[in-house]
Structures are given as structure tokens and as C-alpha cells.
């Protein structure tokens, strides 16, 4: 089965796969929340750290904004890759069980 067709296939995943998907969602959520909490904690309680110059007139705070956005996009990409992988594994197990 082609990957694309497999991902649209209706199947029943094993308990192990379902558990891994829940953990995946929880881990990525925790990483995002950690990064955002750290940003706002520094912004509110250690503003001098964000004012620190890192390159010319660009402060750490200014570098952090695109940094956080890039991190979120990378996490998102990793997440959909893993989730697609779990779907494919479930299809493989399902096909094996049915045959």
C-alpha cells in the first residue's frame, strides 16, 4: 500500500500505538509550554537579561522571537512526521492482523 493511501485507510491501532500517540502529544505540548513560560518569566522578572546585546544593536530578546518561532515550526514538523509514522505502523499491524 502506498504511504498516502495507507494514511487515509481506516484501521484500529494497537494499545501500544495509541499510548505512544498520547505521549507524543503530551511531550511536544510540554516542550512548547516550557519555552513560552521561560520567555515570559525572563521578560517579566529578568528584563535586563533580554536587553543584553548579542550582535550589534540586536538584543537577546529580539533574537529570541524568531528563535521561538523557528523552534515551534521545527517541533511542529517533527510532530507531524512522528504522528504520520505511527499511523503507518498501525496500518502495517492492522494489515498483518487481518491477513
Amino acid at each position, binding site marked *: 500500500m502506498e504511504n498516502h493511501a495507507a494514511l487515509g485507510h481506516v484501521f484500529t491501532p494497537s494499545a501500544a500505538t495509541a499510548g505512544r500517540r498520547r505521549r507524543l502529544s503530551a511531550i511536544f505540548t510540554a516542550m512548547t509550554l516550557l519555552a513560552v513560560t521561560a520567555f515570559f518569566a525572563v521578560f517579566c522578572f529578568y528584563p535586563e537579561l533580554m536587553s543584553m*546585546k548579542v550582535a*550589534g544593536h540586536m538584543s537577546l530578546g529580539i533574537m529570541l522571537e524568531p528563535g521561538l518561532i523557528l523552534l515551534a515550526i521545527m517541533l511542529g514538523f517533527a510532530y507531524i512526521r512522528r504522528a504520520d509514522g505511527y499511523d503507518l505502523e498501525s496500518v502495517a499491524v492492522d494489515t498483518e492482523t487481518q491477513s
Partner: protein
Amino acid sequence: MNGQLLSPLSLAFFLAFLLVTAGITWFASRKSRSTSEFFNAGGRVGPLQNGLAMSGEYLSAAALLGMTGAISLKGFDGIVYSIGVFAGWPLILFLVSEPMKRLGKFTLADVIAWRLDRKPIRIAVALASLPIVLLYLITQLVAAGGLIRLMFGLSYLPAVSFVGMIMLCYVFFGGMLATTWVQIIKAALLFSGSAVLVFLLLAHFGFSPAALFAQAVARAGPAITGPTVLPTLARWDTISLAIALVFGALGMPQILTRFLTVAHGRDARRSAFYATGLVGIFHVFVLLLGFGALALIGHDDILKAGGAGNMAVPLLARLLGGDAFFGFICAVSFATMLAVVAGLTLAAATTFAHDIWAGVVKSRSETWMDTGRDPHTQQPRVARTAAVAVAIAAVLLALRFEGQNVAFMVGLSYSIAASANFPVLMLALFWKRLTTSGAVVGMLSGATVAVLMIFLSPTIQIEVLHKGLADVEKQWWFVSLRNPSIVSVPFAFFVSWAVSVMRPQVAEQHGFERMQRVLES
């Protein structure tokens, strides 16, 4: 400044947008005959298209003009909003994109009510969601009226009425399909316009962001690139604002219902990822444009242009791209407002037709979810009627609020979404012991506490009711925090938990296991 920015090119670009979207609406009206076609475009929207439409739903004129203006006037302090609202997007991807698609049909209430008693949940979700959408809609219309006056020289009444009429046409005739394509076109125009402006800006500085920031610092001082040291109360207020912005996105009905327009869970994940990427890139543009406007135009000239910094981007466009590009950016800003208000009107009309009319007023003991077919084929007609009522109410309220500071309404909208919808949605999806009573009481108490705290805060008491600080701060009821979410979000979680634990429902817990099987299938 009124009317001075009127340009035939702006009008030409804007008329072209209207013509294209009118054509799409006509095409969509021929396609949107069934209930499913009207409410979720038949579930046939592709992931990239939906990602664009979702980002279009979120990227209002406030994002392009307001956030850039805030950065150009306040420097780094203006970035807080940007990070707060962006951070909600990856969480939407990880937590709600798939469950929304797998459990929902037309609205957010379908998901929350999946394993609970549907009637009370639908009423509670509608009571929370309609104010969220209406407050946001009124804010957009008031801002649209003001900006059209600034850009095109139209007076407030015809400007607001015109926007109201166009948004109604999109929703009334084209439903979700037309609204989706209007969002896609608007998002594409917004991204391409912003990207060209960023390119011109960076080219001006020899493609060196360091040179751009150096000029901004030379013009406004070194403090502009760092945060202001906040007093203790303002620190907690900022954290409270961050909670509202981050978690509010996960409770916004007009964004969440977009997951229902794709074919399956995988497409829902992908559309959330595309939207995250697009919104993220847009926020980097906003950062550069804000500091670019500060560097090239200067704080005082941006303020003089009026609109509390909203003219920073159009002025920068005129400086770097001439009158033609300025006209294009003005037309894009107007198109942005139109698309956002159309999405909001559709969300409000769908909530009324599907949750209140079909789910409560006309509901039977056995609903379409049990039988597998929808007996309420009149829902699109009811939604169209509701859209007319919503449009009239929103325009009348926008006229009533002319010239007033309505910025608090966006905060209120995000606070209600974070305090009412977000906690209960999370508990419904991830906590087995949530009961119908827990969900209803949690949702309503979260919304009530958020509204009450904002009403008793300086935002309303001082800025809207114009009372003296000295008079109100001595009152026992006065709430010093401007943003309630640091209290109202945990409160809603606590109330839902306490009520559910006090009166456990075994049948609803079994429903959770069934729901998990659907989510994992």
C-alpha cells in the same frame, strides 16, 4: 489625515479583490446546497488550503497594522502580543487539531458534547462562544470603520455598513466554501504584500538586519530593543495577558471549526502545521516591519499619521514602494478586515443554527449522531437568517461604539475563550471523570469570572467609564489586574473538577473510553 491617503490605485486593487471574491461567492453558492457543504465545505478542503484559511482567519488587520504599529511605537514591549498569540498555534496542532476533526461535525460544541449530555452542553458552549465571536466582530468593525476613514476618506457610517453588507454576502450566499476561499486569497495577498515590503526594507539596509536595528536604536535610543522593567503588578498582569493569548487561541470557535473542513485527521494535523508556519513567518515580518518603520519614519511621524500607530505599515509601503505599492497595501488591509469579519459571522451563525436551533430547539431524543443522518436540512436557512441578524446587530453596535476605545473587547474575547472554552475542551478530551454538570458549571463560571473581573478592572472603570483612579482603587470591589485569565482560567478548571468529582457519572466515563477509541481510529 482623513481621506488624504485616498488613491485610485487603492480603489482599483480593492475593487479587483471584491470582483474576484464575488465570483467565488457565486460559484460557492451553486456548490453549497447541502447542510455539510454550507457549514464545512463538504470536508473537501485540502490541508494547505485550510492552513492558509486558518492563518487568514487569525491574521486580522490588527495583526498587520496593530502589532507593527505597537512595535514601531513601543519597540520590544510591542513583541509580547506577538509571542503570546503565536504560542497558541503549536498547541492547537499538538492538542486539538486531530480530536476536533475526529469528533466534530460543524461546531466546537459537537466535540465537547460528544460523550456528555448534549443539550446543556450546547447551550453552555453557545452562551460562551457567541459573545467571544460577537465581541471580536464588533472590534473588527469599529477598527475597520476607523481605518477606512483614514485610508479612503469614507465616513464611519457608510464604511461600517459597507463592510457589514459585503461580509453578509459572503456568508449568506457562499457559506463555508466562499468564506474559506476569501480567507485563502486574503492570506495569500497579505503574505505576498508583507514579504515584498520586508524584501524592500531589507534591500534598503543592504540585507543586513543589524543595520536596520542600528538605525532604529540611533533614532529612538538603545532601550528600544529591550523590555521595560515592570512594577510587580504589571508583571503579573503581563503573565495573565500571556495566559489569555496563548490559551485563548485554543478556545476560539472560528479557528477550531476550520478543522472540520478537511477530509481526515492527518489533514487536520497538516493544516495546523501549515498555519503555525505561516503565522510564525508573518510574526517575523511584523518584527522587522515594526522596527523598520521606527528606523525610517520615526516615532513622532507615525504618531502624527493617527490611528495609534496603525499607519506605520502603509507609510512604510509608500516610502519604499511608492504610491502603487501603498495602494496595494491599503487594499490588502481592507480585504483583511472583510475576510476576518466574514469568518466570524459564519462562526456565530453556525453556532446558532447547529447548536441552539437544531441541537436544542428542534432536537429529538434520537439525534443525527445516533442515526447517522441529519434530519435538520433547514439548518443552512436558519444559519443564513442568523447571519443577517448577527450582521445587523454587529453593525448597530459598531455604530454605537464609534470613536470609543474598544481594545478591551479583544482582550475580553480572548479571556472568555481561555476561561470558558479552553478548560472544558481540555477536560472533555483528556479527563475521564468530567461530567456534564462539571463542564456546564465550569464553562459558565469561567466566562462569568472573566467578564466580571474585566468590568471591575481599570480597563472599564477608568478607561471606558472615565472614573478617577483615586476614587475606584479604594473600593473593595476594585480589581487591579487588567487581564483576568491568571485567576479565571484556573478557577474554571477547579470548578469543573470539583463539580465532576462531587457527582461522578459512570455512563459518561464509559463514553470517554468510546471517545478514545474513535480518537485512535
